[in-house]
């Protein structure tokens, strides 16, 4: 049933510190809302988990992209539009800017934020596999201070995260060591825009002396959380890419994921596509793929 606005409280302190104190004073009571592209949908359906919301849209502390010699720190409130149009994100983190470009449509890219995508914790989120392969870390902030956690351990289970009730995701940190890698991203869905993925892949690879020096594979929509394919990666390292290896890796990937049947697809289809996507990436990498 549609929610009635009178039953919800929304405040906009317009100040980062004030938001953190509010979360500290009544932990778990307030739901931060940024661009609203997820929460307003839940709200319209009468499914918001909380009745008190605090706007964090446009807070300058969450909107910066800071470049350091060893990493880039992306404010959690940066929109997909900002990610896909930022020069350095485009150049060094192409998987992230590409995923941002196929999330929703233009209007949703103008409002949806990277932090919202992370906290919403959908296993189907387009940009999250990219964060996995880039070894992202998150800066979580609260009135108690800040802590830095590896993104790979942030999602605990389906829609469950490490975020404490008084915390906000402040920034996403990406180490600047992947610019020499071959980068490859694919989304398989009903249509390009405005469609949630049936399967999506973010992949990075680097060859040296004809063998796989490093390889990083992550997929969305194939498990309760965005999934790094550790076993498949392990089966490839140090090997020379040939037809047998591609077949083996593709089977390993199909076995490593934990897909389900849902409204968008079936577990069987997802396993098949996941294997094919890994094969497609390896073939391109083996053919001497330079950066896309």
């Amino acid at each position, binding site marked *: 049933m549609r*929610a009635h*606005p*009178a*039953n*919800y*409280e*929304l*405040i*906009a302190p317009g100040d980062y510190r004030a938001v953190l104190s509010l979360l500290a004073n009544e932990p*778990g*009571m307030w739901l931060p*809302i940024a*661009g*609203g*592209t997820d929460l*307003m*949908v839940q*709200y*319209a*359906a009468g499914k918001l*988990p*909380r*009745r*008190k*919301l605090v*706007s964090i*849209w446009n807070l300058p502390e969450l909107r910066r992209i800071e470049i350091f010699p060893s990493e880039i720190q992306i404010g959690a409130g940066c929109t997909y539009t900002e990610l896909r149009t930022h020069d350095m994100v485009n150049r060094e983190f192409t998987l992230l800017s590409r995923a941002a470009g196929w999330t*929703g*449509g*233009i*209007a*949703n890219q*103008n*409002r949806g934020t990277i932090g919202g995508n992370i906290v919403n914790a959908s296993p189907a989120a387009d940009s999250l596999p990219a964060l996995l392969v880039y070894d992202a870390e998150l800066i979580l902030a609260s009135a108690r201070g800040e802590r830095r956690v590896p993104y790979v351990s942030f999602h605990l289970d389906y829609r469950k995260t490490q975020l404490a009730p008084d915390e906000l995701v402040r920034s996403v940190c990406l180490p600047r060591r992947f610019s020499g890698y071959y980068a490859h991203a694919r989304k398989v869905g009903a249509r*390009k*825009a*405005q469609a949630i993925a049936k399967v999506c892949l973010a992949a990075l690879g680097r060859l040296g002396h004809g063998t796989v020096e490093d390889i990083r594979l992550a997929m969305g929509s194939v498990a309760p959380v965005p999934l790094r394919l550790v076993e498949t990666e392990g089966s490839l390292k140090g090997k020379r890419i040939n037809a047998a290896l591609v077949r083996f890796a593709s089977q390993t990937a199909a076995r490593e994921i934990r897909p389900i049947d849902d409204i968008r697809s079936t577990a069987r289809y997802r396993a098949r596509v996941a294997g094919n996507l890994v094969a497609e990436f390896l073939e391109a990498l083996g053919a001497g793929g330079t950066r896309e």
Partner: protein
Amino acid sequence: MSALPRECPKSEITLTVNGKRVTVHAFAMDRLLDVLRTDLDLTGTKEGCGEGECGSCSVLLDGVLVNSCLIPILQAQGTSIVTIEGLSADRRALALQQAFLDCGGAQCGICTPGMILAACYLLHKTPRPTAEEISEGLSGNLCRCTGYLQIIEAVEEAARRGVST
């Protein structure tokens, strides 16, 4: 779920709509879409899906294309909104309107205001878009009548007529 013992009161929210400063008496969580249509009687902005999928409620918020069904009115406080009504004197929008008519880009009309807003936003940023850029620019706007080709042609035609300057 946190209990909320009483109804939240309405408050005064001021924003600029189509160049005019307005103050509405609204719940903070009222959707911008409803305030436009109900409080301000600007019914050119349509509600399609109500969940940010179809783009028929598109408006410009401080010059940026957004879905008004996903904006709580409190987040629009102090901003400047342009709806399809506000484009009625805009040269680019008028040329788009004519191109939509000439190319058969409008049928039932529900998606059309959103399409025009999204096309205006696109042409503002990319005055001579390719067909692919047009598809992408309008990808958040669904049309169940035309099959899109006439709409893409209409935007190409409007760009060709040089209305983007």
